[in-house]
């Protein structure tokens, strides 16, 4: 009785990580719980704040291409792509069509590797480690292609201001098409797994539902929003670069739960496969780079938007006529989606929290293995991410 009283009067808070190495922006989550139900959630971000925007003001236009690529190691090409597109528009330089097609080709390959990576991580959080290992094994196919094309497995450095660095040869074309066929077969299998496996559906179906109104209100982006029925995709709404010649079909689901998020991402992969084939079969001829790109860029400001695997990446670039940008503002989709996790968490089981978090694809770097000892103020127990994940798995294992 006494215990009940204190639990009702005081919130029982479970802190997860102060450092959550699973996320790109490792955050300190605090879930207030009533029994097993989460009643409130807060997050503290900024552990990986490095000061890139300010740092960009001290580097010249070309050096920044290298820096923005390292904002995120998973969608590195997208960041460089967005930046290069913005700067090229500021300089009023037209990029050759072949270069644009190659940029989009790499962007789609990156989307495949990113979604496969996310898929494995999400399966791991659900306790489905076999699926994690399978999807990461298949992902290596795409990593091989990216390495063959660009020379590096992760930060490809495909872009230069005014074009791309490498060409796609017939040999590349053959290997890419073979790999895409293989991946398509595998993705079909995975789509089948996530929509039919009873154990998996128990963790995803009807969980973390964000309906259309909520999605609009919270400003959710990318596949997470499209799983809630929001028709928003920069590739379709404002086709850029080679997406004008090679249009893409938007994948939208209406359920808004975790299952829909899995389905949207996997179905997007089929669109990516189709687009890659189309680009490779209709590759425009021409140069890879413009002849000359100015070292100083005339004063002005520009906005550049690109659809990253996780949603819309937004860059604002201002030049004062010098060799360096005067201001570079970056907005990434994870930051926007983070608020949705906090809103969706309320009313759910504590055991659902790991799946809810990965549901937005919060730019996972490494797989959890959370470090999580923070200062022990207060008498509540500290939970590691690993413990929370295990709790989720055990909770649902008992229910079966």
């Amino acid at each position, binding site marked *: 009785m006494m215990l009940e009283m204190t639990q009702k009067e005081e919130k029982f808070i479970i802190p997860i990580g102060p*450092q959550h190495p699973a996320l790109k922006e490792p955050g300190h989550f605090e879930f207030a719980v009533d029994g097993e139900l989460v009643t409130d959630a807060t997050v503290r971000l900024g552990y990986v704040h*490095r000061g890139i925007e300010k740092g960009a003001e001290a580097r010249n236009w070309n050096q920044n291409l290298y820096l923005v690529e*390292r904002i995120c190691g998973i969608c590195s090409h997208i960041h460089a792509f967005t930046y290069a597109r913005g700067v090229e528009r500021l300089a009023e330089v037209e990029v050759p069509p072949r270069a644009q097609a190659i940029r989009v080709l790499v962007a789609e390959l990156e989307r495949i590797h990113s979604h496969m990576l996310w898929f494995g991580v999400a399966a791991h959080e659900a306790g489905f480690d076999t699926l994690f290992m399978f999807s990461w*094994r298949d992902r290596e196919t795409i990593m091989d292609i990216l390495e063959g094309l660009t020379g590096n*497995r992760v*930060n490809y450095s495909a872009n230069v201001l005014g074009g791309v660095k490498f060409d796609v040869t017939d040999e590349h074309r053959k290997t890419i098409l073979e790999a895409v066929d293989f991946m398509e077969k595998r993705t079909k299998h995975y789509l089948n797994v996530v929509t039919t496996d009873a154990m998996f559906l128990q963790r995803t179906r009807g969980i973390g539902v964000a309906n259309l109104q909520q999605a609009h209100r919270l400003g959710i982006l990318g596949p997470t929003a499209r799983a809630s029925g929001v028709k928003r995709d920069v590739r379709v709404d404002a086709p850029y670069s080679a997406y004008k010649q090679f249009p893409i079909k938007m994948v939208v689901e209406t359920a808004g739960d975790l299952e829909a998020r899995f389905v949207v991402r996997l179905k997007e992969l089929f669109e990516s496969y189709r687009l890659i084939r189309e680009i490779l079969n209709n590759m425009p001829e021409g140069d890879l780079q413009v002849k000359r790109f100015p070292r100083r860029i005339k004063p002005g400001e520009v906005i550049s938007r690109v659809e990253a695997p996780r949603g819309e990446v937004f860059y604002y670039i201002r030049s004062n006529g010098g060799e360096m940008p005067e201001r570079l503002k970056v907005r990434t989709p994870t930051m926007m989606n983070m608020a949705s996790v906090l809103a969706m968490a309320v009313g759910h089981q504590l055991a659902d929290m790991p799946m809810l978090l990965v549901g937005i694809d919060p730019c996972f770097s*490494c797989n959890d293995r*959370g470090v999580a000892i923070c200062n022990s103020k207060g008498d509540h127990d500290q939970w590691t991410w690993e413990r929370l994940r295990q709790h989720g798995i055990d909770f649902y294992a008992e229910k079966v």
Partner: protein
Amino acid sequence: MNITQEWNDILDKVKTWARVNSPWLIHYNSGSCNGCDIEILATLTPRYDAERLGVKLQGSPRHADVLVCTGPVTMQSRDRLQRIYDQMPDPKFVVAVGSCAISGGAFQGCYNVIGHIDEVIPVDAYIPGCPPRPEAIIDGLVKLLTAIKTGAPIQTEKPEELLDVV
């Protein structure tokens, strides 16, 4: 006395044997771009399969033998890095993965970046690359394990050319 000495020797041998054959890793991202982190993870997945060396990534610093660090050290994560290091039981080893962990890499001079890992904690092995390939990570780990086994100095020294970059 001699018996105790012999007993200790045997115990040491057993300890080293256990240490070399099942190094438990803890991974800490102190401001990295994720590039190194996914490569570390790829090292553990079927293609490269570092688990055949007995490597296991796990969550708590108190169970870990080797701290794998990625990324430059940011202001916010410095205390955390220090604390994780302090919480690990002796003997502990630190591996710095990637250019940023070695020298600050692309983020040198950014206002929130303190610098490299060995400004905060002592580092035993360096694995350069941006990001290093999984093969390189395995190579670094094997060198570390060999050094633990033989008691010889660790062969992966800090690349000289990276020291002078400012």
